[in-house]
């Protein structure tokens, strides 16, 4: 049975964009010689152009059948494992809007390739920060009930196919924050994500997350080799 759930909106405050993460998303894995001024400029431009929004909805989850809200059945083994022990899940989405993409393109076309590239990376950092801020807010809300949140898990992680975005996006109510899904199952604005977190009791087993646990070994963002 499908029930209509409350759509919750949260627009987190981002007072800065994480420069270290920006560099990582731009492919600069280690501490290297690179003009910090360009990274700084890219982060400043994203600060100006971002429109940060998040949305979340709480759903019941049956870990035996792998069903969210009784109607979305998870097939990803990695996600089933990630949510094992959860009786409820939160589906969420975050976006920083399309202004960042326009800016990245503009600078790239002007021949400022590195700046364009770094704006794109800073926008990725920003959307991750937004999602983290949402998770921090949710953690604080649920901790008094003895409930902790698993890490975020998004379509594209491990074996959770990006194709699933089609089923996930409506459950997340992505349109409430101005996000749409294209025919090719891509989120627009491009700097948007969807994710799920499981609600677990502190007595539950520790579902480790992070690159070391991820089954997608060829991921370009993989931190561990």
């Amino acid at each position, binding site marked *: 049975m499908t029930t209509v759930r409350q759509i919750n*909106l949260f627009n987190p405050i981002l007072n800065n964009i994480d420069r270290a993460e920006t560099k990582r998303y731009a492919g600069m894995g280690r501490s290297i010689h690179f003009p910090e001024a360009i990274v700084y400029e890219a982060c400043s431009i994203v600060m100006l152009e971002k429109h940060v929004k998040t949305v979340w909805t709480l759903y019941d989850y049956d870990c035996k059948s792998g069903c969210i809200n009784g109607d979305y059945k998870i097939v990803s083994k990695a996600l089933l494992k990630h949510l094992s022990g959860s009786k409820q899940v939160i589906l969420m989405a975050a976006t920083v809007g399309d202004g960042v993409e326009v800016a990245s393109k503009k600078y790239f076309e002007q021949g400022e390739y590195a700046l364009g590239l770094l704006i794109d990376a800073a926008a990725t950092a920003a959307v991750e920060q937004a999602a983290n801020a949402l998770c921090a807010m949710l953690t604080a809300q649920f901790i008094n009930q003895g409930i902790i949140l698993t890490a975020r898990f998004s379509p594209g992680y491990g074996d959770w196919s990006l194709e699933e975005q089609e089923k996930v996006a409506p459950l997340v109510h992505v349109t409430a924050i101005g996000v749409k899904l294209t025919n090719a199952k891509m989120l627009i604005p491009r700097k948007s994500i969807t994710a799920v977190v499981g609600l677990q009791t502190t007595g539950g087993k520790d579902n480790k997350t992070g690159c070391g646990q991820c089954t997608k070994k060829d991921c370009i963002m993989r931190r561990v080799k």
Partner: protein
Amino acid sequence: MIKIFEGAMGTSLQAMGIADQPCPEYASVKYPDEVMNIHKAYVDVGADILECNTFGANPLKLAQFGLADDTEKINIAGVTAARRAAKKGVEIAGNIGPSGRLIAPLGDLNFDEACESYARQIKALASAGVDYILFETIIDLQEMRAGVLAAKSICNLPIICQLTYDAMGRTVTGTDPSTAAAILEPLGASIIGMNCSLGPEQLLPLVRELALSTTLPISVQPNAGLPFIKDGKTCFPLTPKEMGYWAPKLVEAGATILGGCCGTTPAHIKAMKEAVKGMDPIARTILPAGVRLASRSKSVWLGKGHPTVLIGERINPSGRKAMAAEIKTGNLTAVKREALIQVEAGAGVLDINMGVPGMEQKKLMGQVVGELAMLVNVPFSIDSVEPEVLEAGLRAFAGRALINSVSDKAGVKEKVFALAKKYGAAILVLPLGEKGLPKTTGERITIAKKLIAEGKAAGLKDNDFMLDPLVLTVASDGQAPSETLNTLREYGNVFGYPTTMGLSNVSFGLPGREDINAAFYALALASGLNAPIINPCNAKIRMMTETTNVLLGFDNQGVNYSKNYVAAKTIPVAAVTEEDVLGALAGAVMCGEKERAAHLTLQAFAEGHDPREITAEALVKGMNIIGDDFGAGRTFLPQVMLAAEAMKSAFDALKTKINVEDLPCLGKVILATVKGDVHDLGKNIVGALLSNSGFNVVDLGKDVEPEVILAAAEKEKPDIVGLCALMTTTLGAMGETIKLLQQKTTTTIMVGGAVLTQEYATEIKADLYAADGVQAVKLAKKVVEE
């Protein structure tokens, strides 16, 4: 004596099975005796203040259960149950929790709607006869502000403000205890504190921090430790004895009222009561003199004994046509940019003036304050001569703002003082009389005295006032600056309040205004100026601020000054001799030094090097080295792109000297991101690298239909068609495109993109697979060589 609150209500209701019929608060209506008995159990162990079962009884929250219409009934029932349980001397607090929604722009709840919802609940609680209005478990300061404003509009009952902090000592929306005190004390809280989320041990340092930041009593209601779930039930680890152990420590840290939140029982409250028996609140430190302003997450002291604070003046469209025009179109980018730049340049406070002719300033001020508070974390000074514009800004600002300003103008000053009191704002007093500009220090002091007395009569306190000495133009009155400086000194002698002033007026009509302003700034600082309203981006002002901070003892032994000084020094670039100009150019490309690359290219050309030689021996050579380094993991993509930029700037320089046709062209490449895929950064990177390696690139863009790519291939007859796909979901479209191209053309097809692999490229019959942009260039060169 230390007062003791009762312990948890919700967990007791849950244990009795009456917490979800349909919500805990409704138990007061449905099961009044049971609720009364829970209170009574706390009275029996010595609780001094009972908390009504009204935590979620605001109409917004009750609406979730279809009970908004019963708001009054539920609140009155909650108070009645507590009243019935109370013995003589036991007080009752009307308990108010979060509305469950965040206030805009953090969430979708309108500030006025939040105020109205709280006001309705408070009216019911007050009418039922509570002794305190108690806000607890609030996670956002703006929601607390809405609650306090609502309470002040309904009754004169003492207001207790308890926020919930996380393990990092901040609320979910970023407020620390010290900042909370800076905002809530002037706003009208009677008691400030914290509850829930953490146990007593974790709250202890936060209580200490709060005690140093407020003169008000402090209330603390920890959970019985951090919860865990056992056999499907939420459990709290701390025993009554353990809670008793921490109680005296909380008092020693500054708490004056103790209680318990989630997981505490009458046994816990009893243990706490006994543990603090005979204890009195500790004597607290007196707060430093001065005015404290705050944003949601940061507080700033202004005044004697505190470092100079720069109040950024640049968010002011008067006299700035471009900014005003942009604001009129509804675009706030220029305003946001000014905010970021000024804060980065060291502004501790931002002045916001929205005097845009033809705009509804009230609405604009509210919007700008809301949006800028999402961007920067410094407090704001709300700058307007219209009380209703001031109010819009003060209402929207989740902090303690400065009102800029009040002068001796009857009919307006009363409104402005009332606004300062209502919103807990500080106020800048401008000694302007109705008769015009007072020329002498004596006249200015007289007006300031009068205004301050009137402000105090309106309820303001010493730490709410700042003073402006008035700055007049030296070109029209040679003695004006001396009078200003004299006024600053006299302000210090007579009032001791922090001072501020706009400097630049002094030099109006003279040449070299920056120098005069800087000198005047230094003199003013020496005369007691604390917080100039100024352009913090001005290099001279910055230098003057940094140096005077050293000289006035705010930058001990010049440590910060020295650090900044060293960082600002530029490293000289070695001169390039004729012999190594090509080597130097290759180096400039590798290091991504655009200007140097252009300069060296022209130098090489002037020295007689052939464009082909410059390209091969310097530009391509540098690019190749960086490409190899990238392949080996020694450099990274942004560095490669910087090198490409330098190469572009070198080519651009060369094009000013020769015909474009004379530059070597290696071949033609068509690039496109396939149908359905809207990513184009990766493709653009490949395009930039190819075109700066001598290829003619035709970029078809993103989300390109196979037929469009085919048509372009037939028309352009390229050496290579490069296709890009970034998502697994668009790989199919790539396969289709290749199929179509191979049916109709013989062109070489190269593919790439984050999700592609050699295996997949082979499967869809692509001729070449490039793992990255650098490899794409190498493969393309190979194709044209063959």
